[in-house]
């Protein structure tokens, strides 16, 4: 399912955040959204998800505008992995994942056996089946993030929007989340995720969008978009980009910042 964002202007009532944003994501493609704090990444995501009304422009799925879609239909198309916050009541991890099935069951219904199986399958895919009976409020931050991805997976979305899925995770959990991003893309889901680590874009993104001050500064392959000049201009730091050989062979790029001198671009 092809996602097309056309000339989107987004923000809050009386407070525009960004405008003129256009991009597409194909099924099975991973688009990484990079940009400084306050650049409008989360607001853009919420607008793509129709959680905020666009100030202008259109979000299309397979050519059809999503304006006027009801919540259940939106939820069967778009999955959302928010930054894991510790709020709410002590539901079990299985119940949290089951909540992903809500858009697939009637308003008065409770999840049926097929929904429970979908939730368990999602837990197994993420490798956290052993957490099913644990309370969501008692597990670690990394486990919580994986649970939220499982919830989005149980939702069976065509487009998955992940807002800084690796934020506040340790190194191992960050890599585990990126592995899941790749796995889900192989299933034909169109994925957009945001991150503060450009190395992650080199590792698992097909394309990168650079968002700064509410505008797309660049859009293309990681190698074309992530350059020392652009990173310097956006973040105000001096960066070198090196090619290294990965542990499983194959080459990837990494960004190495300099602590020596601030740059003046």
């Amino acid at each position, binding site marked *: 399912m092809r996602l097309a964002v056309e000339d989107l202007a987004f923000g809050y*009532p*009386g407070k525009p955040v960004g405008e003129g944003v256009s991009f597409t994501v194909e099924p099975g493609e991973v688009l990484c959204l990079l940009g400084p704090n306050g650049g409008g990444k989360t607001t853009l995501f*919420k607008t793509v*998800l129709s*959680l905020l009304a666009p100030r202008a422009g259109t979000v299309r799925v397979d050519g059809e505008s999503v304006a006027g879609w*009801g*919540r*259940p239909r*939106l*939820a*069967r198309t*778009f*999955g*959302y992995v*928010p930054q894991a*916050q*510790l*709020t*709410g*009541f*002590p*539901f*079990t991890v299985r*119940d949290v994942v089951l*909540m*992903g099935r*809500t*858009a697939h*069951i009637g*308003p*008065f*219904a*409770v*999840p049926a056996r097929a929904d429970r199986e979908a939730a368990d399958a999602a837990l197994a895919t993420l490798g956290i089946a052993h957490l099913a009976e644990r*309370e969501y*409020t008692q597990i670690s931050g990394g486990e919580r993030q994986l649970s939220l991805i499982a*919830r989005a997976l149980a*939702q069976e979305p065509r487009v998955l929007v992940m807002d800084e899925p690796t934020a506040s995770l340790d190194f191992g959990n960050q890599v585990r989340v990126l592995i899941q991003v790749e796995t889900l893309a192989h299933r034909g889901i169109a994925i957009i995720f945001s991150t503060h680590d450009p190395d992650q874009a080199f590792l698992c993104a097909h394309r990168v969008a650079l968002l700064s001050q509410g505008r797309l500064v660049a859009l293309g392959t990681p190698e074309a978009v992530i350059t020392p000049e652009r990173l310097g201009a956006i973040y105000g730091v001096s960066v070198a980009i090196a090619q290294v050989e990965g542990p499983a062979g194959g080459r990837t790029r990494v960004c190495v910042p300099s602590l020596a001198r601030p740059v003046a671009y």
Partner: protein
Amino acid sequence: MLIAAALLVALTFVSFSVGRFPVGPTALVRLLAAKATGAPSDLPPAVETVVFRIRGPRVLAALAIGAALAAAGAAYQGLFRNPLVSPDILGVSAGAAFGAVLGIYLSLNVIAIQALAFAVGLAAVAAVYLVSAFLRRHDPLLTLVLAGVLIGTLLGSCVSLVKYLADPYNQLPAITFWLLGSLSGLTVRDLLATLPAVAAGLVPLYLLRWRMNVMTLPDEEARALGVDTGRMRLIVIAAATLMTAAVVSVSGVIGWIGLLVPHAARLLVGPDFGRLLPTAMLLGGGYLLAVDTLGRTMAAIEVPPGVLTAFVGVPVFVWLLAVSRRGWQ
């Protein structure tokens, strides 16, 4: 939950038996059997009067009111994602209190006072909802709570004003008595008038039990999972308000049940609303019945249940928090 139900049945029997005019369990069973078969019982007519006219309505009212308040509390705690929310957070009790106090001040009859309490209770919550809908630029839950506090305070001042103006020998005692809450003098007619509103509130809450779980997530997550949270909030507020206004208008303000009982139920069976709602209703009905039975038997005068719910509830709640491992967060 089965244990709770069994306890509730036992408690109901105890409550029927004890009081100023004790009725033994065998006499009670014989009386019920006679009533069921239509055969005349050989018991004195006074026993029948006590059981069916006085104690019966009161026991059933305690069960219904306790269950309704606990159900409304469970719904609000889920909706506001906060275990320390009670059914009167949006001003329904304050509104009902003002309506009743105004009715007493205007020397209306009992039915008119109850109707006024019910109507002003609903109107107060409607006002809260409209004010919060008008302030759309802030977080919807926060504005609801703030508007509830504001309208509640305003109504509290109105109650104080009426108390100040009221005749201190006739009206003021009646007002104070009403504000303390009481189940004495409740008739079958009161009960029958209350039950449709309670049922009308309960049915949508139970039908929407899975969505209620999703509503405990942050608003944007719930919407991203396919729930129209604005509409859900309106339905849940309407349902819980209808139930609370109906029972408060006949019993007066009985605090603590809507706050403590759902929390206790959550400690016992976890947060899943499909199990939480019936458990909270069982516990709420049983709790108010126990407190009311205690209140009318422990002393020569009746202790108002509105006072006793806190006296019994607070220590029980502290104990629950101490022994339970299943908490909120």
